[in-house]
Structures are given as C-alpha cells and as structure tokens.
C-alpha cells in the first residue's frame, strides 16, 4: 500500500526527458520495494521443494529443487494435514457467514432505524475497537471455558461474528447506499422489518458485503492467536496452529513446514487475485460521492 504514496513530483524546466527520468526512478524505487516484499513468498515456495539440509546451505537455494513430494509426504505424516485444512476452511466460512449476517443487520439498524439509546449503543460498539486485541485474550479464554467451548471450532467463529469494524463498515455503506425513502416504499409495499432487510437492504449492500466477506475470510484464515488460546488437540487445530506445531527447537522439518505454508497461502492468493479490485473499491466506497 505504501508504494502508492510515491508519485513522480512535477518537474519544472527539465522538459520531457527530465520528467521521464523522474518517472523511471520512481518505478525503480517501487520495484525494489516490491521485490523486498515478495522475497519471503518466493523463498517459501522455493524452500518447499528442498530438503532441510539444502535449505541451510550457504548461499541458500534460489530456485526450485526436487523434494516437493518428499516434503509433502513428511507433512502429511507429521500432521493430520487435510483435516487441519478442512477445519481452517470450515472456520473461515462460518466466520464469514455469521459476520455478514450480524454485521449487515446491525449496520442496517444503526444506519436507518430509530430507537432509544441508538447513539450510545453505537458509541459502545465503536469503543470496542479502541481496545488492543491482546487485552481480550484472557477474558476470551475464561468465557470460552465457562461455555465449555474449549477445543471446539465454534469458539473460533462465534466471538468475532459481530465485529465492531464490520458493523461500522456496514453502517457507513447502508447510510449512503440505502435512501430512507426506499425503506419507506418497501414498508408501503407490504414489507415487514425482516423483508425490508432481506429483500431491499441486503441486495443493495452487496459491494460492502463482498469487502467484509473477504476481510473476514482472510482474518479468520490467518488467525493464530485465538486458536492458540482455545484449541487443545492437534486434530482440531486450524492450519496456522498445526503448522506451528511442526516447529521444535531441535528437529524442525523446514521443507515440510514451507510446503504446508505454501499450500495454506495459495487459496488466499487466488481469492485476492479475483477480488482485489472489489476489496479496494468497497473500502473507499462513499469516501467520494
């Protein structure tokens, strides 16, 4: 994102050649930045095809090797890998579905309905964004423990289902995308409150829903801390936690670990490639009329 800030400054009195030089040097700086950011991904994919010994050669391998199959076999021997992958997908989908449902309902209510203490309630929701997420770790464990949800997947997708950020995003979008008259027209046409939400508001919030879905899915997919707090047994782990369990002080199979990490990354890369335009459009929607 930060690369976007580098734009060629206007050049006065240097003519076209001068402007071109500035432009190209800007590209160069951006290019180097991009290279640095992509390097970890590159090494992850490359190391996934090398044995542990090769990875620690000096200099390290820069191009693909031949140990991918071996690494993958190691990975599936050490971990219930497909099961962990399945849990990751399940948790991310459930988190996304619940977040979309609750945040869109709350956002619609805060944007377009009148009720007592509306401002105060919205203030409280917003205030939760001020708390550092680490403050939440111990209370979260205690609550999940009290509910008897320790080592259960629902402890991963239920608590975040009404996120303050999601509610805020939905409210902002609904207040610009859904004119009050539309809700009134629907009421005249015979819609009850749920029909208004389901048939009118929800379809109009699609762009913001797409954005929130993507953000929620990625956050859930990458989440490491929450599973670490509440999950106990390896077969119930989501991928980030399961991959972490491959690491030990003495005997880490780095090739297998990189292979697992690479596989875990691919869905996100594909998802982002398809939807990045939508993601950015949704985040800036309403910024400029």
């Amino acid at each position: 994102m930060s690369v976007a800030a580098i734009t060629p400054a206007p050049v006065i009195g240097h003519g076209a050649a001068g402007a071109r030089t500035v432009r190209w040097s800007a590209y160069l700086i951006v290019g180097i930045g991009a290279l640095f950011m992509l390097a970890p991904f590159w090494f992850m994919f490359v190391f996934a095809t090398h044995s542990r010994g090769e990875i620690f050669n000096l200099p390290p391998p820069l191009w693909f090797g031949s140990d991918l199959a071996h690494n993958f076999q190691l990975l599936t021997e050490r971990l219930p890998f497909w099961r962990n992958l399945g849990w990751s997908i399940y948790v991310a989908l459930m988190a996304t579905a619940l977040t979309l449902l609750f945040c869109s309902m709350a956002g619609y209510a805060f944007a377009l309905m009148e009720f007592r203490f509306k401002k105060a309630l919205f203030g409280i929701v917003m205030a939760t964004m001020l708390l550092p997420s680490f403050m939440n770790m111990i209370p979260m464990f205690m609550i999940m423990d009290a509910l008897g949800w320790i080592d259960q997947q629902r402890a991963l997708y239920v608590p975040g289902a009404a996120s303050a950020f999601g509610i805020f995003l939905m409210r902002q979008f609904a207040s610009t995308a859904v004119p009050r008259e539309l809700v009134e027209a629907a009421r005249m046409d015979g819609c009850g409150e749920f029909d208004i939400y389901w048939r009118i508001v929800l379809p109009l919030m699609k762009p913001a829903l797409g954005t929130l879905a993507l953000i929620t899915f990625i956050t859930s997919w990458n989440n490491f801390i929450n599973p670490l707090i509440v999950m106990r047994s390896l077969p119930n782990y989501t991928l980030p936690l399961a991959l972490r369990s491959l690491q030990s002080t003495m005997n880490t199979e780095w090739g297998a670990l990189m292979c697992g990490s690479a596989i875990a990354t691919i869905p996100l890369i594909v998802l982002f490639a398809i939807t990045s335009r939508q993601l950015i459009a949704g985040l800036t929607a309403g910024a400029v009329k």
Partner: protein
Amino acid sequence: MGRVSLRNVRKSFGTTDVIKGIDLEIEDGEFMVFVGPSGCGKSTMLRMIAGLESIDGGDLLIDGKRANDVRPADRGAAMVFQNYALYPHMTVAENMGFALKMAGVGRAARDEQVRRAADVLRIGDLLGRTPKELSGGQRQRVAIGRAIVRKPRVFLFDEPLSNLDAALRVDMRIELSRLHRELGTTMVYVTHDQVEAMTMGTRIAVFNRGNIEQLGAPLSLYNEPANEFVAGFLGAPRVNLVDVPGPEATPALRAFWSMLLPVVPAQARRAGVRAEHLRVVASGAGVPATVVMAEHLGDVSVLHLRVDGIADLLHAKVDASHAHLVAGASVGLVAGGSVLAFDGTGQRIER
C-alpha cells in the same frame, strides 16, 4: 371507495407541534392538493395518512374506518415519492409488481396487472430495464406505475414533479390530471408549486405552521383568499400588499391608497392588489413610480416598481407593449380591477 377523514389530527416532534389539530374531509375521487411553504406540515400530514409517521392525537379514517394503527400496506394507500424511491436492484417490472408479490399474488396475475399499468403509462417497452437505465421522467412514470398496480383507494404524491425539468413537469402535470380522470381514484398531492396546485387540484388546502389556513377550489382561493397568507401564497408574482397611510405617509402612498378607496372598506388596514391589476401609464398620470427591474418574458412583462413611501417593491404584470421599459424608467401606476382588503389581523374583509 377512497374517502379520507382527518379529525383533529396532531403530531409533535419533541416539543415542536408540527400538526396542530387538522380537520379535513377528502371526498372519494377528489384531487386534493396540500400546498404551503417548507416546514408547514404538508408533507408530514401526507406521511401520516400513509402510515410512515405516527399520529399523536386525533383520528384518521379511511372509508369510515379508523386507520391510526393500521399497517401502511393495509391502509389501501399507495405513495409516489419525490425521489421516486425505485428499488435499484430490480427491473421495472419487478419494481411495479413488488407490492403484489409481497401480498402473495401469483406470477401470472402479477404480470398481467403490471402489463396493464404499464400500458396506461406507456412504459411497456421499459419493463425489462433497471431504474438506472431510465431518465428522470421515465423513473417517475415507473414510480406512478408501481402505485397504480396496487389498485389503491387513495394515491399519495409527495412533491412528485419537483425533480423534473420544467418542460417535463408540464407534461407530467397533464399526464397526472389525465390519470386522475381515467382512474377516478382519490389523490392527495403535496407540492410547494402553486401552479401545480392551481391547475391540478379539485380542492386546495393551504397549510401554514401546522394548520390549514384555507380550504377550497383553486379559483375561489385565488379570488377570495381568507387572509393575507393565502393571498400571498397563491399568485406569481406575489400579491402587492399596501398599508393604510398613517399621519406621516408620503404623498405617493396617499395617492395610491385614494386610488383604491372606492373599492376598499373604511375599516381596512391593508390592501392587496394582484400584479395583473396594476397598470402602467405614462409618467405624470397615476401614482409616480420608478422601475427597479423589468423582466420581459415575451408575452408579458413583469415590472418591479418602487413607490415613494411603500417599503416593499410593487410588482406589475403588464402586456408586452411595455417591453421598452428598462430599470430606472419613471412611470405612472394605476390600480384597477378587484382589490383585496384586510383588517388589522390579516383577515380578508368581505365586501
């Protein structure tokens, strides 16, 4: 049937009374226009009939049945909004059929009714489009179509033409009048445009500060306004109001008033002369006046005139033979035709 009765209807927002006890009978098949300045309560009154605003006091009766607490959809009223309020994610046909769908009407019957309404409004070829592919005038037709499809007992229009350009507004005005004739359904129409009120209404209710100042047929309101407010609200340019001359009045004002004296009763404190009843003659005759601004519209000219001793500019609507007059010209003013007389409280004095 579509008879709407308002009995001492009240509404407050917080401590502000916006509707202060309105009594009104809207007859079946009538075209009732609510006019008034912004904030006079006319839109709120309409929304209360629709069920979009609660009624704080009094009774709303639709066809004799108390409807205060009836759900908006069950009141038999259909509303056309100022900004059309079409559902952007539905096609024209889906927009028009939505209320029927919600009422559980089957697809075939729905399509049939949508088709028929579309024919009435000549939008049959637009049914497959979405609202954003339509022009403003087409959108308004669809919004009206959506209301027609429901076969309501009463149509409610909330300034439906104010987002259209001038030419289209004239067309739609004619169209709506035609529709009213064909359907024969009760219509309640809110506008701040006095031309719309005068041309479309069977009766007009002039709202001011949460009350109805006067109720009546358009021309009777124009010719026999109950008070200064109604006289001032109907008619463009505004009616000229001139105070009775006091002891320090200028000769020009005295001359102007004495010109009105034959038709103004002695107890009048203020007189109202409509712009078309002021004539302009050569300087030297009549009351001396100076042209401050002249608007030559081709068919008529509107002159804004200063008379010594009268605080407000006087407006005169004269024929095109005065098109040579420019700002600064000196002319003489003659008042002729009917003159309205008001007492100290602003009420019109009957002659």
